[in-house]
C-alpha cells in the first residue's frame, strides 16, 4: 500500500491521548445524557450551521438553475411550462374545494363549535426548498427561512394543496421540516365526512401515510378526505392531508386504520408556506384564558 498521510494535525502522543479522552467523554455524554447533549450541541451548532448554510444555499441555487435550464430548454420546451401551470392550478383548486367542503360542514354542526372557526387568519411566510435531508433515515426538507424570519420549532408547513410537515430544527437562516410521510411525525386528524378523529403518521419507505386509532364503528370509506383536527401540531383545523386509499381492521384490533395518499407530492416541492404560530389560535386562546374565567378551559360553577 502506498504510504499513508501522516496525522500531522493532532500533534504529539499527549495531545492525541487528550483528544481520545475528550472524544470518549463526548460520546458517553451524548449516549447517556441525550437531552443535555442536545442543548450543548444546539448552542455550538448555530455558528456552524450558519457557515455551512452559505455553500448550501449556493449549491441549491446552482442545482435549481441547472434543473430549471434542463426542464425548460432541453426537455420538452413549452409543454413543461404549461404542465407546471396546470398542476399549480389543480393544487389551488383542490385547496379551494376542500375549504368549501369544510365550510359547508361547519355550518351544519353545533353552534357551540362555531367559535372554533375554520379559517382563522394565520400569518405565514413563504420559503424555498434548498435541500433534502442529510441522510436516508429521515424524510425532511431544508428551507431557506429560519429564526430571523420568525420561524420556530413545531410550526406547521403547508402548500395550497395541503400540509407538508412540521419544523423540527431552526437556525438563524434555515430550518428543517420533517415531512408528513416520515414515521417520526404524527399529526392529529379527522375524517372530513364522518368527523372521526385519529392520528396520521408516515410509513417508512412509502409515500403514503397511515391514519391510526379510527373508532371501530366509524363509517370511514375509500375516497374520504382526511383533514387536520387542529388539536396540536402547529396546524389550524381543516387543512387537507389526503384521501383514504384503503381501510383495515384486523379481527382482534380495537381501532380501524386507514391508508391515506397525501394531497401534496412532497418529492417535488419547491416552495412552501410556514404557519407562523406553533399552536392553533383557538388552543392558544384557551391556554391564555385564566382558569375559572368565562371561556376558560375549566369554568367553576
Amino acid at each position, binding site marked *: 500500500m502506498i504510504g*499513508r498521510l501522516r496525522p500531522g*494535525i493532532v500533534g504529539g502522543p499527549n495531545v492525541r491521548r487528550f483528544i481520545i479522552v475528550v472524544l470518549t467523554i463526548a460520546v458517553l455524554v451524548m449516549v447517556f445524557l441525550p437531552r443535555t447533549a442536545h442543548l450543548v450541541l444546539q448552542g455550538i451548532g448555530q455558528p456552524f450551521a450558519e457557515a455551512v448554510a452559505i455553500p448550501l444555499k449556493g449549491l441549491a441555487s446552482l442545482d435549481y438553475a441547472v434543473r430549471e435550464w434542463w426542464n425548460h430548454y432541453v426537455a420538452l420546451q413549452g409543454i413543461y411550462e404549461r404542465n407546471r401551470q396546470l398542476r399549480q392550478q389543480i393544487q389551488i383548486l383542490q385547496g379551494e374545494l376542500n375549504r368549501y367542503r369544510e365550510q359547508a360542514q361547519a355550518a351544519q354542526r353545533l353552534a357551540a363549535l362555531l367559535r372554533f372557526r375554520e379559517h382563522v387568519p394565520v400569518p405565514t411566510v413563504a420559503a424555498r426548498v434548498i435541500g433534502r435531508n442529510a*441522510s436516508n433515515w429521515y424524510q425532511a426538507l431544508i428551507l431557506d427561512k429560519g429564526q430571523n424570519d420568525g420561524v420556530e420549532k413545531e410550526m406547521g408547513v403547508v402548500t395550497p394543496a395541503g400540509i407538508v410537515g412540521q419544523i423540527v430544527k431552526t437556525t438563524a437562516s434555515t430550518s428543517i421540516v420533517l415531512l408528513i410521510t416520515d414515521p417520526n411525525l404524527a399529526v392529529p386528524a379527522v375524517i372530513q365526512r364522518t368527523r372521526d378523529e385519529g392520528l396520521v403518521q408516515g410509513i417508512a419507505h412509502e409515500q403514503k401515510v397511515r391514519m391510526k386509532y379510527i373508532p371501530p364503528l366509524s363509517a370511514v370509506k375509500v375516497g374520504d378526505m382526511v383533514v387536520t383536527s387542529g388539536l396540536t401540531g402547529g396546524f389550524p383545523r381543516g387543512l387537507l392531508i389526503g384521501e383514504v386509499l384503503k381501510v383495515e381492521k384486523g379481527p382482534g384490533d380495537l381501532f380501524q386504520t386507514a391508508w391515506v395518499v397525501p394531497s401534496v407530492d412532497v418529492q417535488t416541492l419547491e416552495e412552501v408556506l410556514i404557519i407562523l404560530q406553533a399552536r392553533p389560535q383557538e388552543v392558544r386562546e384557551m391556554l391564555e384564558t385564566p382558569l375559572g374565567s368565562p371561556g376558560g378551559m375549566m369554568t367553576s360553577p
Partner: protein
Amino acid sequence: MKLLLYAGLIFLLVPIQTTILHSLSPFGIRPDLCLVAACLIGFWTGHVEGGAMGGLLGFVQDLFSGGTLWLNTVTKALVGFSMGVLIKHFANLTSQWIFFPVVIFSLISGMVFLVFARGAIELIGVVQHLSIMLVPQALLDGMLAVVANWALTRRIAQTDKL
C-alpha cells in the same frame, strides 16, 4: 493543505449531500458521504483524526437532518475511530479492500439508525429495511470509498514522484 482539505469537507460535504446528490441518487438511495469520508480519514491518518473528523462531519450532518442532534455525531466518530484502529492491526491491507470495512461500518451504523430513528424491533421490519435501504446504501458507500480511495492513492503517488 490538510487543514484546508478538512475545512472543505466540513463546509461542502453536507451541502453536496443535501442538494446535488439528491438529484443523482439511484432509486432514491444516496450514499452517505460523511461516513465514507470518516472511513477514508481513519484509513489514511489513523484513529484519532478519524474519530475527530468523523464526529465533526456527523455533527454538521445532524444540523441539517430531521433527526436527533447527536446520532450522526456519535456514529461517524465511532466509524472514523474504528477504521483507524482496524487499519492499525491490518496495515498490509491493499487499498481496494477498504470496500469491506466500509460496507460493514455502513451496515452497523444503519442498524443503529434503524433502532433510534425507526424504533424497529420487529424482525419483519428489519428484513425490509435491510433489503430496501441498508444493504443498497452500504454497497454504494463501499463502492464510493473504493473509487475515492483509488483517486486519493493516485494523487499521493503522483505527489511522491514529484
